[in-house]
């Protein structure tokens, strides 16, 4: 239920939005020049999604999401730094963005990685000449098994940060957030808001719930980032809704914070619309996915995340279902996953997919806001 809504908070939040947009537009040419200078460009060679007219995207700078991360971090640190409320979301976002940046850079500049499978590790344990290497392989065996298990859920990569490494680091980001919510924000955050039904006290169980949502949402946004403008436009809608909810609930730190993200995303999306001047990259999608989860958790609307991030959740579920169908039934549910590739395969233009996804996202987010205000 709305608790307090002052015009001053809204005015302040809108100033943050306008300021972030302006700063975003100012920084874009600088960022683009840097990305071109250091040749941080999309490489068609390693990108299975590049086909037909999409191959024209080869050579487009990636890591454009850095714009949003820099603008949000800078404005928040300078004008909205609140040790209780904003430093952990910024920290977790920066940590995830760093992970994404490392992945982006390794994908561009890194060589192929030699990864041993579990069979190979078992052989090494048996036959290696050096005893300490045998012990090392025994110690790292569960890690190798974990890596092998994660390859079942996606295509095998041999460049960049591997899925199991990403999951581990995202777990760390989720755990830090969970610790912050559980230990720092107070007992009221140990209750889980239930739509239409008040809230329920969950105590320490809030920790795994938060870790799950942070990891899941970060990956969902990451997976959805496949078409020009899709993630940027959808996130504008989502963070706008978070900003409005924060304002209605009188959360003086989060209303400006969310509006800052909206402002930065406006500048980013302006340049990301087809034909994109730059693309988000993992630096943006992982960072903003983490931030989306944390900011929703922070205003205690955790269970609304599947609606607030509807398109992202649909995209990640399309991948999960595709893998399940493939492994269990031996056939495809979609022509290709994530879902936007399916629509591309059946002949929809990129613009048509993106705009329809925006419309759907906007509608579902409106429903989410309505539920939140009930």
């Amino acid at each position: 239920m709305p608790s307090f809504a002052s015009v001053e908070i809204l005015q302040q939040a809108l100033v943050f939005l306008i300021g972030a947009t302006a700063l975003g537009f100012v920084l874009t040419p600088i960022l683009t020049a840097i990305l071109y200078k250091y040749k941080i460009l999309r490489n068609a060679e390693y990108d299975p999604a590049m086909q037909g007219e999409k191959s024209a995207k080869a050579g487009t700078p990636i890591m454009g999401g850095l714009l949003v991360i820099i603008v949000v971090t800078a404005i928040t640190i300078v004008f909205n730094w609140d040790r209780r409320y904003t430093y952990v979301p910024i920290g977790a976002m920066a940590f995830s963005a760093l992970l994404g940046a490392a992945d982006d850079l390794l994908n561009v500049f890194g060589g192929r990685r030699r990864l041993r499978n579990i069979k190979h590790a078992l052989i090494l344990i048996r036959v290696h000449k050096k005893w300490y290497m045998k012990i090392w392989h025994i110690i790292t065996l569960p890690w190798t098994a974990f890596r092998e298990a994660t390859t079942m859920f996606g295509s095998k990569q041999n460049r960049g940060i591997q899925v199991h490494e990403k999951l581990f680091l995202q777990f760390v980001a989720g755990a830090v957030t969970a610790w912050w919510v559980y230990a720092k924000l107070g007992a009221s955050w140990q209750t889980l808001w239930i739509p239409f039904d008040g809230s329920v006290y969950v105590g320490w169980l809030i920790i795994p719930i938060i870790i799950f949502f942070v990891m899941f949402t970060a990956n969902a946004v990451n997976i959805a980032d496949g078409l020009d403008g899709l993630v940027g436009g959808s996130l504008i809608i989502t963070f706008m809704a978070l900003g409005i909810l924060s304002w209605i609930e009188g959360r003086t730190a989060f209303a400006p914070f969310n509006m800052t993200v909206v402002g930065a995303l406006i500048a980013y999306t302006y340049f990301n619309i087809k034909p994109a001047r730059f693309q988000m990259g993992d630096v943006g999608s992982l960072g903003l996915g983490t931030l989306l989860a944390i900011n929703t958790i922070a205003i205690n609307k955790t269970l609304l995340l599947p609606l607030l991030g509807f398109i992202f959740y649909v995209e990640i579920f399309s991948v999960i279902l595709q893998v399940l169908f493939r492994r269990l039934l031996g056939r495809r549910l979609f022509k290709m996953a994530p879902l936007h590739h399916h629509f591309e395969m059946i002949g929809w233009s990129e613009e048509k997919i993106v705009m329809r996804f925006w419309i759907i996202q906007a509608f579902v987010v409106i429903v989410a806001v309505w539920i939140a205000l009930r």
Partner: protein
Amino acid sequence: MLSPNAEKIIDQYFNLPFPGVDGVRCPYFNNSRKRSRGQLRALVGKGSPKEIVEEAKIISTQYHLGIFENDCSVCKQNLTADDLRKFMIDHDLGIECSGFVSQVLRAHFRETKNIDFTTKLRIYPPAKFFRYIISILRPIENISVRVLADDRNSSVVGLKDVVAGDIITMLETQPTKQRNHVLLIRNIEDNIIDYVHARAWSGDGKYGHGVTAGNIEIIYPKDGLLEQKWTENGQSDNKNETYLEAKRAKVLQIRRLKI
């Protein structure tokens, strides 16, 4: 004769439904060498014609190989059936013998008896719990020649009793490798058994193999299969590699599924 739908499936294997290109005969692919696990049916030699074509489209799109126009509605203009076959073989797309027989018989029994025969076969016993569950979820992928030739799933029939829909099973056709083969009887008319199967002859080379038709002329009704005249691709007797394989098989039988 097999049912019209089964005949349609066979025709589709001989002429895969690629949009804009006719006469693409489905190549042979056996997963035993590649050993893919938990893969799509079409990628382990067990797919239906539609699944195989769909997978070809997806592979072409995913790896930007330029086989289809951008929306995959039609193949590129100057492509021939041979180009497409080469593309499929290079990307491990095709059908193997038991997969082919299973797909055709599934259509046949659905139409004639309104049942999915793959669910009636005993593939793995419940005691092998994991494999049993997998075989329920993915029956076609788990139906091998051994399964079709199992006494619990099929029974031996004599040459004079053979009907369309029966199968000719060849077990252990090579001394060193566990290699089996199966042919599907398509039609019997005037003492001639028409069969279809998926296989690769040594003379086919890298790109010549695939779904093939042949016949067995019953010259000596009282004798066994090997005493009859086998003809395939215009070759008879020892030049016919299917016949040679039948000769080498430790067990050669005509069987009828217990449906």
